[in-house]
């Protein structure tokens, strides 16, 4: 499903030496997540959680090592092979990334339209999804007219509307109150129960404690794995438990 193999990642460096590469944001990351798993991605701010997620949803390619997502080996895949795989992944961004000039309805419908779904069949699905996140009354509003929490729910609706095989969420509870955060987590667990592989980055320890699941700990760009509990071997056990 997802396999990282000795992955290293550098961002292009800015500053006085443009064109050079910055320091490694991730080094020697190796793990594998089985199909249908639910995984927490934990670590302090700047540890590299968003970077790992970007590799997972093909927004970046590794500088070294190999990343395999939904059967695609990303490091050397031709560029044209990436879009079809991206369409099988749902992403909730830390900063939502909604399109301000489209209505809430059109924002949520975007993945279905990119997949070529007919207008007639997509309307009911979008309405249903908006009901699910409790925003059916705002379907024709602009995302700019919504509160942060409402925008986050729209971002989540857009991420799951096309029933992705892999759902990647970066701090999805950051703008939600405790009750809504729990409700969102329940929704993500429900998606996971229905077969979607889910990876959630968070530093909300209370929430993680409430929904216990296997975790990957990142520390300064490395997988922090003192007792090798989350290595490839550990995952085979979890797979059997699930």
């Amino acid at each position, binding site marked *: 499903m997802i396999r990282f193999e000795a992955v290293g990642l550098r961002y292009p460096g800015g500053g006085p030496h443009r064109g050079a590469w910055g320091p490694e944001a991730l080094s020697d990351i190796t793990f594998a997540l089985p199909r249908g798993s639910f995984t927490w991605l934990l670590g302090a701010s700047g540890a590299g959680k968003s970077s790992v997620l970007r590799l997972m*949803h*093909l*927004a*970046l*390619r590794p500088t070294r090592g190999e990343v395999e997502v939904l059967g695609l080996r990303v490091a050397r895949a031709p*560029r*044209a092979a*990436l*879009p*079809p*795989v*991206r*369409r*099988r*992944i749902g*992403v909730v961004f830390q900063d939502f*990334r909604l*399109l301000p*000039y*489209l*209505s809430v309805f*059109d924002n949520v*419908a*975007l*993945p279905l*339209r*990119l*997949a070529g779904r007919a*207008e007639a069949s997509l309307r009911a699905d979008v309405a249903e999804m908006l009901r699910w996140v409790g925003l059916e009354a705002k379907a*024709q509003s602009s995302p700019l007219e919504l509160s942060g929490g409402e925008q986050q729910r729209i971002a989540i609706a857009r991420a799951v509307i096309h029933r992705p095989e892999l759902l990647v969420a970066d701090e999805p509870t950051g703008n939600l109150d405790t009750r809504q955060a729990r409700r969102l987590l329940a929704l993500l667990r429900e998606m996971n129960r229905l077969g979607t592989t889910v990876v959630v980055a968070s530093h909300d320890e209370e929430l993680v404690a409430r929904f216990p699941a296997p975790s990957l700990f990142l520390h300064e760009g490395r997988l922090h794995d003192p007792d090798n509990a989350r290595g490839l071997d550990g995952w085979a056990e979890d797979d059997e438990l699930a």
Partner: protein
Amino acid sequence: MARRARYSRDPLGLRRALAGWLLPGLVAAMALLAALAVAGAQGAAALADRWQRGAAAAVTVQLPEAEAAQIERALGVLRGLPEVAEARAMDPARLAELLRPWLGGSAGLPLPAVIEIRLRDARADPVLVGDRLAASVPGAVVEAHGLWVQRLAALARSLQALSWVILVLVAGVAAAVVAVATRAGLAARRDAVEVLHGLGAQDSYIAGRFARRLGLLAAGGALLGTLAALPALALLAGLAAPWIADEQAGAVAAWGMLPWPALAAVPPLAFLVGWATAQATVRRWLRRLP
């Protein structure tokens, strides 16, 4: 539904990002130049053709006496001159036929002998040819009326070539303007492009949206520019009409003489230039994303 239709044609919000009259205005100005150049090229070609046909005998030589020996001697001298490409005595019967409207049918009048010559180079001076011929054949007169026509025709041909160069330049500048507008659109919609790319939109999908929008803007501007050029073109055509179509000159003939197919091709060509430039610009820009 209006809203639904609006989305499906414009998921990137390009109608707002690429709005305003700057691009269509610039394209309109260039289409106006293109229309003038097209009409100029076509008009120059018509003039050149007509003049070149009239200048078949660029230089004629008249001999006062139509004696065979004299004609032979003159032909011999002319053919020996390096400037002369061809020298041919005009058939006396044809000459008589040409002159009959002025001289009547009387066969008794002594007609001069006429030799048509073509010069190797239109810029050669026919006076020198005449001087050398007169030295050996006294009384020979060289007429160079056709030469002017030939030079005018050459001028018309260079104007025609110039028009094509202008046309190519105009197309190049139009492409550059569209490329700048495309980059501005990409800068304004950078987030949206990145979001669509992240959701799995192919490069062709994103580039296609930009190309369609910019192609339409360019075609609209070109249509306005071409329409604006029509009155000026009709005026010029009216002025040129007596030179080209001697039968009837005037406004009606002028409208008929405009190069309609070429003018009608300006907006579609502008669409193609806009479309292709936007495609190339967006696809190159997208290469920076993984």
